[in-house]
């Protein structure tokens, strides 16, 4: 039984508009340490927009985000990464020309201390550091079961494996909070099961807090601790999976109303 901790991330009254189009309206919810918190909703509900606000890709027009006790009007991608938030992408954003190993190694970037000159000369400490980082990366590769593809350029791997590399790169950052943007989109049942297992294991073994976006209700309800439901940019439900499943608004959003 895992222990769910204090609130680590809280979004308050977030609104986001692109010109006249309102992507998000007045959304508030919190994420507790070590939990799997899902954001679900039909296509176009604003799930990815929400994630992009947390990640600093979009700047919300209103509201605030509190992370580890610090409150921000909007976030900055790099700063967020430094504070221990990693993410994966809905439409894979891997470094296609680079090998699986190099892709995951880039995730260690923030943990690298030695400077450029030392790296270039492969001088003692820099060399040791590279080896130490490499060990961590190898562990991730083992964990995700992608050992045979270590040296393969990522662009050549099938889609399901690319998704794993994307997850691996995020894990390499040793994040406290992991944002997953539809990690199971476009996968077959078997691949989905594998991905679910990885997500649960990450949460379990490393205690990583996970914010998961998914529109496949079934998967989400099985693995989440708490769920936020968005529809047309508004929050229509929030709570444990069973509560949400019974929520009238949620049923209507997913199934439509009978007239």
């Amino acid at each position: 039984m895992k222990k769910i901790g204090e609130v680590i991330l809280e979004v308050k009254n977030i609104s986001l508009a692109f010109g006249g189009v309102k992507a998000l309206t007045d959304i508030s919810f919190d994420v507790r340490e070590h939990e799997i918190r899902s954001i679900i909703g039909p296509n176009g509900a604003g799930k990815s927009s929400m994630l992009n606000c947390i990640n600093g890709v979009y700047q919300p027009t209103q509201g605030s985000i509190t992370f580890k006790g610090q409150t921000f009007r909007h976030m900055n991608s790099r700063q967020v990464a430094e504070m221990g938030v990693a993410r994966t992408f809905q439409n894979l954003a891997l470094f296609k020309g680079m090998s699986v190993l190099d892709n995951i190694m880039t995730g260690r970037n923030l943990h690298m201390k030695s400077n450029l000159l030392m790296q270039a000369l492969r001088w003692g400490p820099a060399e040791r550091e590279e080896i130490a980082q490499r060990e961590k990366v190898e562990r991730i590769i083992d964990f995700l079961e992608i050992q045979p593809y270590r040296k393969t350029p990522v662009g050549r791997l099938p889609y399901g494996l690319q998704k794993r590399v994307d997850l691996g790169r995020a894990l390499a950052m040793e994040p406290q909070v992991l944002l997953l943007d539809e990690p199971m989109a476009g996968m077959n049942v078997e691949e989905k099961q594998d991905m679910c297992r990885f997500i649960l294991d990450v949460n379990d073994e490393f205690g990583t807090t996970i914010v998961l976006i998914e529109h496949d209700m079934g998967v989400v309800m099985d693995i989440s601790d708490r769920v936020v439901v968005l529809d047309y940019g508004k929050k229509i439900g929030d709570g444990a999976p069973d509560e949400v499943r019974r929520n009238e608004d949620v049923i209507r959003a997913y199934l439509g109303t009978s007239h």
Partner: protein
Amino acid sequence: MGFLIETVFGGLMTGMLYSLIALGFVLIFKASGVFNFAQGAMVLFAALAMARFSEWIPKWLGFDNAILANILGFLAACAVMIVVAWCIERFVLGKLVNQEGITLLMATLGITYFLEGLGQSLFGSDIYKIDVGMPKDPIFLFEKSFEGGVLVNKEDLYAALIAAVLVALLALFFQKTATGRALRAVADDHQAAQSIGIPLSRIWVIVWSVAGVVALVAGIIWGSKLGVQFSLSLVALKALPVVILGGLTSVPGAIIGGLVIGVGEKVSEVYLGPHLGGGIEIWFAYVLALGFLLIRPQGLFGEKIIDRV
């Protein structure tokens, strides 16, 4: 036979210089996905800075030592190129993060005109000379094997050596360092690179500085051969077919592309010229590049771009 070798040698030397300029293109393209139209202007700007500073600094400080003047001039020019890199990031590229390649290309076109204008108004628009003490005298090689030997310009030999060292250093940097890996990551996907905490702005300053120093080296070598003048920025046009031939993403490609074009144009000028009426040197590179675009658009060593449909 001696004459053929001599022609090939001459071609290799010119080719090496094309390679140096092409290298600047490849570096920036690899690391930021930007096709940098301003590379030629950077060569001109760097060479002007070098030529003028090595002339001014002795005057300011009141000493008369050619070697010291060149060293200080070189350092000053390096500093200037780093400032240029920083400004380009701060005022141009930094504002264009996550934009389309074509937008960035147009931005570098703007930088080209700006640098050409600024360079000439800061440093003057006359013809200046750079004299880094490269030996000008020709030497004869293989005198035993051929009658009369092979005539080679010593200056060219030194230039080729410098270029080779530079290339080796760059290859090491890109493949073996964590920063090099970060550079390649940024080239592939800005957004993803940001999400794992790679500082885009710092990476761009680094890569433009490196490209600036490569431009400086190219500028010094060309400048000491031909003098520093506006036409230097046009040499870059010869580097375009080189990168098409070698592949935009490949450092070795830039080198081999440069050599192939250098040798090709010299040999065809000498041996085909009399039959076709001469002037082949002027168009040879472009026709070759055109042929490559039809047959192998990614170049000899470029990464093949496969899009998932």
